[in-house]
C-alpha cells in the first residue's frame, strides 16, 4: 500500500492545462504534436516530451513571459517569441533548438548568474534548483560581466516566518511567488517593489513576512525556482530522498500531500499537484504544522491508574488492554450491558472508526457509540437525509468554479477551510457573485479583490428566520423553479410547505425585527440566489451549532430544491466539514442509531446483514449520544467509556458538566497522542498514532475517500486500529485483521455506497468519491443528478423557533464562537507547533461601543459570564463584530470558552448550541474561579504524569 516515490521532482509542463473541445496540431522540432486549443507552445512541447528551458514559467501559474529563457523560433514569424506566452496555432512549425537560441539563452543565464551567489554546494536548494538546472541545460561556462558590479548579494535574509526563509540575495525576480500569492492563494500579500535593477519581492509594504498579510500557505515557497523561499526544515536537514503520497489530517478539505522523507523523518510536506481536493495548494496547517507528531509531549507507553488522583503507572500494552477490558466487563456485569460505550474519532481513519463502532456493537453488545460530529455536523446528517435522502454534501470542491452565485452561511472558509477558500476566491475574482450570511464580518466579506454583494449581518440564532425570509421572497415573487419542483419533488409536501412559507409572518419585512437584516437587502439577496445562474450554498458550524441546527439545514435544502440548484455542477448544498474525517466517521456508523451507510438500527435486514457477518446479535435499540452518555454518567447508569482520539473535556459544551460526568465514571479509557484534557480524567491511557504513523483512509467534505499512508513507525508501537483489535479480543470478541485494507474490504461488502471501494482502487485512482458501486465504479462527483437519493425531494416545514437562550439585563450580549486559520479545533496538534506564533491565546472580540460602555480597552482582561459559567480572556476591540455580539475562539483549554456555553442543543440531534450564549462582559483583574481550578487541576495531572512509575521490566 505504501507507494514510495523515489524522485522528489514534479514534472512541470510550464503553463496550466487548457480545457477545450477543439484540438490543434502543430510541428515542434519535426514532431507532430496535438494539444488542446489555447495551450502554450511551451506546454505543447512539454506534453510531447520536449523540454524548453524556462524559469519564470510553471504549470501552476499563468504564463508571465519575463525570463526570456523559453524563447523559440517559429516559421514565418520574426524574432524569438517566448514559448510560454505564445498560444499554439494549427500548422505552426516550431524549432526549440538552434545556435542562435542557445546564444540567447546562455546570455540570459549569464545575466542572472552575474547577480547570484555561487554557493551551490552549500545552498539548501542544491540538487533541487531550477536555476542550477538551467545553467546546466544552456551550457553556461563563464560570466563575462564578473561578479564585482552592483548586485544584491548582501541583501538581508528574512527569517521571521517560523517555517521558511526569504533570502533576497538568491532571488531572480521571476515573480512566481508574487503570482502564486495572487493566483493560487488569493491573498495578494506579495508584490514586486521598485523598478529595474531595484526590483525586489516585498511582503505587504516592505514588511517582514511575519508582520505582513502573508498567511504562510506555502504557495510562494512551492513556486520559487531557487532557494530564495525555502523551508527551514530543508535548510536544516537537506533534500529528501524519497516521498510518499498521503492525506492531510487537519480540516475537511482533505488535501493530498507528498510527505518528503529522509528515512523515517519528514523533511517537508508538499501539496500534491495531482491531489483531487487541493490541486497542489496547501495552508499553514497542512503544509507546515506537522511537528506535533514528534513533539516531546507525545505519550508512547500505555499507562493505567486506579483513581484520577493517583500517579500514572506505565505498563505493557497487554496489561493496559487487559485492565481496560476487565473493568468494562466488571461494569457491565454489575450495571448492565448498556452501562458502557465508546466515542469514535473524526481525526482517525475510516477503518479505525469502523472498528470502534464494531467493538461497541459486537463486543459491548449495545449501540452506545457516538462521535464528535455530534457537536458539529450531526444536523447536516439529519437535515440532508430528511430532504434529499443522503447525509452528505452534493458536489465536488471543483464545482465552485462553475458557480455564478456563491452563498456562504455560518462558515469562515478562509480560516476554517483555507485551501477551498482559495478556489472560491479565484471564482469570485472571475466574477461570481457572493452572499455572506454571518453575524460577523468574516474576511470574505471584503478582502483583496473580493467583496460580498450582500452581507446579511443577522443576529446570532436567527438563521431559520433568514432562510424562511429568502424562501418567502422567492415563492411570493414568482422566482421559484416550478418545473424542477414539479418534476423532482414530492408535490404534496411542497404544497403544504408553500402555503406555510408564503404566510406574511415569513416575509423579510416581518422578520426584519428578529433577524436585524434590512428587508430590502434580504429580498435582493434572495432574488440574486434564485435568478443569478448557478447558485451554490456553502455552510459551516454557524448553521448547525444552534438549537435549530437541523431546521436550518432543512431550510437550506428547501431553498436549493425550490430554485433547482441541485443535481449538476456549479450548484448544490455543501457542508464544510470541520475535521478531516467527520464525513467518514459518520459514514462508518459512528452514530448510536445508525449502522455504517446511515442505516437505522431498527431495520431488521441491516441488523441481520451485519449480525451474520460479525457473528453477533445487533441491538435494535438506539444507544446514547455523547450528551446523553454524560447525563447518564451523572445518574449512575453509564460508567465506562472508550474514547479514541477525542477531547470532550475541551470541545464539548458546558465543560463543568462534562468533567463532572467524567469524574463520575469508573473506567475512562483514552487513546490519544497527548495527555489531553479528557485524559486528565482517565484511568487507562493508550498511546495513539498520528496520521504519519498509520495506513487507512479519510473521507473529506466532498465524500472523497483518500489514502492515508504510513511514512514512519508508530511511536507507541501500534497503529490505532491495532489497539482496538487488541481491546476487542480482550473483551472476548476477536477481530482477525492483518491490515487496514481488510477492514475496508469488509466495509465495502456491508455498505452499498462503498461497494466498489478498495485500497487497490485507491492506489490506482488516487481518490474516490462515494457512492462507488456497480453503477459508478469510479465514484460519483455530483449527487442527485436526475433523481434524489430518496426519490422525490422532500420539502419540510421550517418554523422559526427562537432559542431558549435569551439576552437579559444580566446577560445583555450574545457570545458566538469560531476558529482561526493557524489553529485547529482543540489545538492539541497546532498548539504544539510554531503556529502559535500567529495565535498564542484566545481573545474575546468586542465592538468598540460595547467596550467603551464597559470601560474595556484593547488587551484588557475581560470577564465573560453566562448562565453556565465564567471565564476571563483578553479583549480584542474590533468592528468585525456588531454591537451586542462578542466572539471568541476555543483553541486553548485554559480559555474555557466552553465553560460559558450552555446545554441548549439542536432539537433533532442534540448538537450543542455553541453559537449562541447570552453573556455579560466586564473588566476584571484576575482569572475566573474556574480558570484557577483548571490551572490547579491541570498542574496536578501533569505532575501525576511527570512522576509516572516506569513499567516494571
Amino acid at each position, binding site marked *: 500500500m505504501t507507494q514510495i516515490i523515489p524522485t522528489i521532482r514534479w514534472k512541470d509542463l510550464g503553463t496550466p492545462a487548457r480545457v477545450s473541445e477543439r484540438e490543434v496540431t502543430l510541428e515542434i522540432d519535426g514532431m507532430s504534436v496535438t494539444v488542446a486549443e489555447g495551450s502554450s507552445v511551451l506546454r505543447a512541447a512539454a506534453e510531447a516530451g520536449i523540454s524548453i528551458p524556462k524559469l519564470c514559467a510553471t504549470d501552476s501559474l499563468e504564463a508571465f513571459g519575463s525570463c526570456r529563457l523559453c524563447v523559440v523560433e517559429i516559421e514565418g514569424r520574426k524574432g524569438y517569441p517566448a514559448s510560454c506566452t505564445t498560444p499554439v496555432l494549427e500548422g505552426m512549425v516550431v524549432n526549440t533548438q538552434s545556435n542562435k537560441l542557445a546564444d540567447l539563452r546562455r546570455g540570459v543565464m549569464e545575466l542572472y548568474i552575474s547577480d547570484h551567489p555561487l554557493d551551490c554546494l552549500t545552498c539548501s536548494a542544491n540538487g533541487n534548483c531550477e536555476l542550477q538546472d538551467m545553467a546546466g541545460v544552456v551550457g553556461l561556462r563563464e560570466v563575462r560581466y564578473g561578479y564585482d558590479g552592483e548586485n544584491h548579494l548582501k541583501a538581508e535574509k528574512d527569517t521571521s516566518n517560523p517555517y521558511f526563509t526569504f533570502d533576497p540575495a538568491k532571488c531572480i525576480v521571476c515573480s512566481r511567488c508574487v503570482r502564486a500569492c495572487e493566483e493560487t492563494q488569493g491573498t495578494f500579500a506579495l508584490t514586486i517593489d521598485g523598478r529595474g535593477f531595484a526590483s525586489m519581492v516585498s511582503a505587504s509594504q516592505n514588511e517582514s513576512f511575519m508582520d505582513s498579510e502573508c498567511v504562510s500557505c506555502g504557495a510562494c515557497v512551492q513556486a520559487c525556482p531557487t532557494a530564495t523561499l525555502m523551508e527551514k526544515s530543508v535548510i536544516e536537514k537537506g533534500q529528501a530522498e524519497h516521498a510518499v503520497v498521503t492525506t492531510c489530517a487537519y480540516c475537511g478539505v482533505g488535501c493530498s500531500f507528498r510527505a518528503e522523507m529522509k528515512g523515517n523523518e519528514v523533511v517537508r510536506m508538499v501539496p500534491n499537484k495531482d491531489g483531487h481536493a487541493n490541486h497542489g495548494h496547501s495552508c499553514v496547517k497542512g503544509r507546515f504544522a506537522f511537528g506535533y507528531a514528534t513533539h516531546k509531549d507525545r505519550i508512547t507507553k500505555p499507562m493505567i491508574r486506579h483513581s484520577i488522583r493517583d500517579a500514572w503507572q506505565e505498563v505493557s500494552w497487554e496489561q493496559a488492554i487487559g485492565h481496560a477490558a476487565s473493568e468494562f466487563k466488571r461494569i457491565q456485569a454489575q450495571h448492565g450491558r*448498556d452501562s458502557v460505550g465508546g466515542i469514535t474519532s473524526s481525526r482517525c481513519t475510516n477503518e479505525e472508526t469502523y472498528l470502534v463502532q464494531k467493538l461497541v456493537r459486537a463486543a459491548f453488545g449495545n449501540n452506545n457509540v457516538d462521535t464528535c460530529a455530534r457537536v458539529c455536523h450531526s444536523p447536516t446528517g439529519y437535515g440532508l437525509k430528511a430532504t434529499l435522502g443522503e447525509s452528505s454534501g452534493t458536489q465536488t470542491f471543483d464545482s465552485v468554479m462553475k458557480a455564478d452565485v456563491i452563498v456562504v452561511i455560518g462558515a469562515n472558509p478562509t480560516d476554517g477551510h483555507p485551501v477551498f477558500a482559495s478556489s472560491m476566491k479565484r471564482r469570485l475574482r472571475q466574477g461570481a457573485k457572493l452572499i455572506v450570511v454571518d453575524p460577523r464580518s468574516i474576511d470574505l466579506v471584503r478582502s483583496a479583490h473580493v467583496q460580498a454583494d450582500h452581507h446579511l449581518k443577522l443576529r446570532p440564532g436567527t438563521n431559520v428566520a433568514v432562510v424562511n425570509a429568502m424562501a418567502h421572497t422567492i415563492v411570493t415573487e414568482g422566482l421559484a423553479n416550478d418545473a424542477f419542483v414539479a418534476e423532482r419533488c414530492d408535490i404534496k409536501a411542497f404544497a403544504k410547505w408553500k402555503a406555510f412559507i408564503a404566510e406574511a409572518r415569513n416575509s423579510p419585512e416581518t422578520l426584519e425585527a428578529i433577524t436585524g437584516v434590512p428587508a430590502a437587502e434580504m429580498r435582493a439577496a434572495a432574488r440574486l440566489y434564485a435568478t443569478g445562474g448557478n447558485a451554490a450554498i456553502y455552510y459551516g458550524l454557524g448553521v448547525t451549532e444552534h438549537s435549530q441546527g437541523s431546521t436550518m439545514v432543512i431550510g437550506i435544502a428547501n431553498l436549493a430544491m425550490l430554485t433547482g440548484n441541485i443535481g449538476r455542477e456549479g450548484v448544490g448544498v455543501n457542508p464544510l466539514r470541520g475535521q478531516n474525517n467527520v464525513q467518514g466517521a459518520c459514514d462508518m456508523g459512528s452514530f448510536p442509531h445508525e449502522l455504517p451507510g446511515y442505516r437505522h438500527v*431498527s431495520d431488521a435486514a441491516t441488523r441481520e446483514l451485519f449480525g451474520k457477518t460479525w457473528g453477533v446479535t445487533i441491538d435494535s435499540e438506539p444507544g446514547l449520544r455523547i450528551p446523553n452518555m454524560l447525563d447518564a454518567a451523572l445518574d449512575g447508569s453509564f460508567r465506562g467509556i472508550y474514547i479514541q482520539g477525542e477531547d470532550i473535556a475541551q470541545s464539548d459544551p458546558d465543560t463543568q458538566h462534562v468533567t463532572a460526568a467524567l469524574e463520575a465514571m469508573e473506567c475512562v479509557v483514552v487513546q490519544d497522542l497527548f495527555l489531553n484534557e479528557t485524559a486528565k480524567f482517565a484511568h487507562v491511557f493508550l498511546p495513539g498514532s498520528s496520521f504519519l504513523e498509520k495506513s487507512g483512509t479519510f473521507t473529506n467534505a466532498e465524500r472523497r475517500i483518500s489514502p492515508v499512508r504510513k511514512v514512519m513507525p508508530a511511536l507507541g508501537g501500534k497503529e490505532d486500529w491495532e489497539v482496538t483489535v487488541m481491546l476487542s479480543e480482550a473483551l472476548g470478541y476477536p477481530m482477525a485483521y492483518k491490515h487496514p485494507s481488510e477492514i475496508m474490504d469488509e466495509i465495502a461488502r456491508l455498505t452499498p455506497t462503498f461497494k466498489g471501494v478498495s485500497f487497490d482502487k485507491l492506489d490506482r485512482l488516487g481518490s474516490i468519491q462515494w457512492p462507488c458501486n456497480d453503477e459508478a465504479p469510479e465514484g460519483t462527483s455530483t449527487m442527485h443528478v436526475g433523481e434524489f437519493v430518496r426519490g422525490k425531494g422532500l420539502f419540510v416545514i421550517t418554523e422559526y423557533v427562537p432559542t431558549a437562550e435569551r439576552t437579559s439585563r444580566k446577560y445583555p450580549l450574545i457570545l458566538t464562537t469560531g476558529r482561526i486559520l493557524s489553529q485547529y479545533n482543540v489545538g492539541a496538534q497546532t498548539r504544539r507547533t510554531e503556529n502559535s506564533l500567529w495565535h498564542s491565546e484566545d481573545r474575546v472580540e468586542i465592538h468598540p461601543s460595547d467596550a467603551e460602555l464597559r470601560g474595556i480597552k484593547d488587551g484588557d482582561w475581560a470577564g465573560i459570564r453566562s448562565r453556565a459559567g465564567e471565564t476571563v480572556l483578553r479583549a480584542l476591540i474590533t468592528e468585525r463584530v456588531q454591537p451586542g455580539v462578542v466572539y471568541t475562539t476555543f483553541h486553548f483549554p485554559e480559555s474555557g470558552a466552553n465553560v460559558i456555553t450552555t446545554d441548549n442543543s439542536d432539537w433533532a440531534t442534540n448538537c450543542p448550541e455553541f453559537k449562541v450564549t447570552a453573556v455579560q462582559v466586564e473588566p476584571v483583574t484576575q482569572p475566573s474561579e474556574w480558570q484557577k481550578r483548571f490551572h490547579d487541576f491541570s498542574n496536578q495531572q501533569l505532575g501525576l504524569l511527570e512522576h509516572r512509575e516506569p513499567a516494571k521490566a
Partner: protein
Amino acid sequence: MEIERLVKMANDIANFFEAEPDHAEGVKSVAAHITRFWDPRMRSAIIAHLAAGGEGLSALARAAVAALVPPARRAA
C-alpha cells in the same frame, strides 16, 4: 437521567413539529423521532414522567410521549 433535560428535549422536538398543520401527523412525528433517537432508558424515564403528571411537557410533547411504546426490559 435528569428529567428536566429530557422534558426540554421532548419539548424542543415538539416545537419543530408544531408547524405541522395535521395534529395527528405531528404527534406521530414527535413520537417517531423520540423512538428513533432516544435510548430505552431515556424513553422509559419520559414515559414514567408523564405517568407522574408530566410536569413541564408541552401539549404536543405530552401527546407524543403518551403514544410511545414502552421499551422492552433490557437483558444485562
